[in-house]
């Protein structure tokens, strides 16, 4: 019997079709992997199942009966639970308190009773966790298991796990898989969203591949291998120019040496990263989101201090410099999130001037004509649909990004750090940004492009580095980097050791 069936699910967000008539079935007692790249539609599909999204069309059946799921409460009532990538735990409460929060009958909170229950459940599923520990003291892997306990406490029979290994170290992955196996043995069904081929091949019984919102197919694990899956995941014709240029014909300008850094949660997000960017080249850093790209951008922009390593721009060590000094040293920075890269309530002209404000001051007083002229020049050059005096938050995403581009590029920097520069932009804006980066490269600047969009990395870069779990697993010339090789590297299945 099928535990869950999703039939013909379509979900659209504006012009973007996230799920396009997707069929999906989950057998009882199986671990079923949902595989695909960023933006393939996996998370959307599961959010539909969990009641966070309402599908535009299609049907959901639980135990072969059609059901209406309009909210997580409905999902839980139907025995479906979800552990998402962002844990919904309260760090200052204990494990047991987190598990029973919002689901404890009566008025009293008896810690002995609650602790015992949680300990029993943990034991039953082989989850090693003490109910009285504060969540704050738990590792990421342990916190994830608390999330699983939360779902089990609510009597679910189907567990959805969204990219669960994205935040785990290899040892914790083993523990997670052991847990999932035990869950399967006790009759639960698991849906496992992932982009990591090796793990999918280890844990799942069946695998469904999504690509660009469509279901490509469902296979049994035993009937397939990593190569075939990679082809299903990524398989599109490469378009964009095949670059014939010699790799790194200019001088190396940026040298990143053995940099390690922690992320906001205190976990090691960059592990001994080394790379070089030459003048007149674009080095693209490819990888699925969450593998350390944000921290790499932060370290190079001056907003994140690394634990170890050097970052040399020519002769100058960038480590320890504040953002303004890095900018003045000739680094143009395009931040990952444009909404925290501009002051939304300030005007376009003000945002364009703020980074190099001293250039626009006459004895401390704003040279308003200069600021306005500069803004108008930038608006013209970068084709920004705005006036100098309009509030920046009123701009469309594409125009906001153009403001950021103008700000980063107008000083003719010799090094450009571009993090997710076309994320969330429409086709026109995307093309514009990409052409601008190529322009800078041709001008002789060194460009480091960090992007989750593999197509973008492939069509723009002269060399491609792949980042996986905080490490650079290989640096290839563009003509060596086929989709297949990249797919395998991005999923952790292959590593290319360089002599670079």
């Amino acid at each position, binding site marked *: 019997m099928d535990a869950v069936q999703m039939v013909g699910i379509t979900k659209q967000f504006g012009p973007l079709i996230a799920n396009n008539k997707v069929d999906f079935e989950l057998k009882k007692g199986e671990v079923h992997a949902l595989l695909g790249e960023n933006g393939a539609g996996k998370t959307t599909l599961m959010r539909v199942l969990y009641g966070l999204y309402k599908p535009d069309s299609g049907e959901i059946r639980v135990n072969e009966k059609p059901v209406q799921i309009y909210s997580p409460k409905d999902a839980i009532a139907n025995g479906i639970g979800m552990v998402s990538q962002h844990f919904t735990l309260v760090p200052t409460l204990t494990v047991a308190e987190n598990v029973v929060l919002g689901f404890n009958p009566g008025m009293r909170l008896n810690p002995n009773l609650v602790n015992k229950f949680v300990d029993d459940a943990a034991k039953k599923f082989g989850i090693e966790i003490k109910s009285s520990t504060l969540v704050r003291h738990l590792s990421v892997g342990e916190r994830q298991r608390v999330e699983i306990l939360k779902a089990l406490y609510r009597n679910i029979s189907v567990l959805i796990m969204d990219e669960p290994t994205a935040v785990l170290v290899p040892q914790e992955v083993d523990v997670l898989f052991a847990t999932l196996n035990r869950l399967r043995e006790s009759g639960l069904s698991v849906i496992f969203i992932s982009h990591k081929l090796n793990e999918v091949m280890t844990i799942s019984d069946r695998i469904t591949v999504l690509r660009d919102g469509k279901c490509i197919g469902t296979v049994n694990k035993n009937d397939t291998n990593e190569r075939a899956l990679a082809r299903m995941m990524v398989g599109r014709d490469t378009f964009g120019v095949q670059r014939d240029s010699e790799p790194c014909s200019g001088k190396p300008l940026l040298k990143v040496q053995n940099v390690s850094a922690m992320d906001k949660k205190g976990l090691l997000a960059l592990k001994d990263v080394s790379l070089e960017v030459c003048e007149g080249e674009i080095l693209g850093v490819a990888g699925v989101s969450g593998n350390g790209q944000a921290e790499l951008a932060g370290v190079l*922009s001056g*907003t994140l201090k690394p634990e170890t390593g050097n970052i040399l721009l020519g002769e100058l060590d960038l480590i320890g410099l*504040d*953002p*303004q*000094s890095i*900018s003045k040293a000739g680094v143009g*920075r395009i*931040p990952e999130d444009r909404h*925290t*890269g*501009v*002051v*939304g*309530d*300030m005007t376009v002209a*003000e945002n364009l*001037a*703020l*980074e190099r*404000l*001293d250039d*626009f*001051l006459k004895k*401390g*007083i*704003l040279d*308003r004509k200069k600021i306005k002229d500069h803004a108008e020049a930038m608006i013209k050059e970068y084709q920004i649909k705005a006036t100098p005096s309009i509030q920046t938050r009123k701009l469309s995403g594409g125009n906001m990004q153009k403001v950021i581009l103008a700000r980063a590029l107008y000083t003719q920097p010799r090094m450009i750090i571009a993090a997710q520069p076309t994320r969330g932009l429409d086709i026109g804006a995307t093309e514009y940004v990409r052409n601008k980066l190529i322009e800078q490269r041709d001008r002789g600047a060194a460009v480091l492009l960090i992007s989750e969009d593999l197509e973008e990395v492939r069509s723009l870069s002269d060399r491609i580095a792949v980042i996986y779990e905080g490490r650079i697993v290989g640096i290839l010339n563009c003509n060596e980097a086929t989709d297949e090789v990249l797919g395998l590297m991005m999923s952790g299945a292959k590593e290319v050791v360089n002599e670079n």
Partner: protein
Amino acid sequence: MKINYRLVRSPAPAWFSAIIPLLAIVVTFLITSVFIIIAGANPFEAYYYFLISPLTSKIGILEVLVKSTPLILTGAAVTIAFASGYWNIGAEGQLYAGAVAAAWLGTTLIGVPQPAAILIMLLGGFIAGMLWALIPAILKVKLSVDEVVTTLLMNYVALFFVSALLNGPWRDPVSNWPQSPDILASTMMPKLFPPSRLHFGFIVGVLAVVTIWFILSRTGLGMRMRSVGMGQEAARFMGVKIGRTMFITALISGGIAGLAGVTEVAGIHFHLIDAISPGYGYTGIIAATLGNLNPFGSMAASLFLGLISTGSQAVSRSLGVPTFLGDVVQATLLLVTLAMFLLRNYTLRKVE
């Protein structure tokens, strides 16, 4: 055919945003009518005395300006602080610091001609206010201690300090009352339109507002201040030094509040007393909020609050309603305005 309207989350039309202050005033008076009725008076009569009566004579209008003077200054002080994201609740204490400086300088500047004396008084008051704002500012920038509580507590320390002075070394030897000796005639603020009490301090207030406006909108420092107040993370990314900017803001804010103390001592009372400020520092917060953190808006709000203040005395004299009604109206106006500002984010849309 029934047309339904729905409140949709989208910026309100400009004309609506402009009349929000007026709406807030109307709603405030509706609410406070209840209290007026309880006090046994007619609301319409009360509003007449509140808003209209002071404006019906030249003396009345000038008196409104007198009452507004300290509010214009504290309002300006709070405006520049809040606009930069620094929650200076200590304007009251900083005002007292300036008053102390004025009372002291006012008795020691013997032989100094009036224009220079007044200038020195103002400078001294500004510095005193700055010094009073220094400790909370350092604690905030160096130790990340929240400035709300520290500036508040400094207000009380200031009050005790003044009380100690007035009951001790500065007690008037002649009358034995807790008030400092009168300041020299050369240090008194000249009257602008005698016999009205309106004095030079009003000009100081206007100049302070213009200065704040100039700093915020025309200088690099001001732009950095606003960026910290409007988007600290982006400002940091763009290289603005957050701590240093906040520190400078805190000091300027304290200095301007100190000026308010000078104007009250040198313009109205001519000596220092315990009750030199019935809460001007806090009312300044109301003015800044009503003015939407815009220097000129804050000045307009200060004038309006001054009108209410003046009017409340007329209401008390004529109708027997306690003068505290004025404070009630001001506080209600603040809360109503806070709520109504939210309406700027919503529009009514027709729904079929």
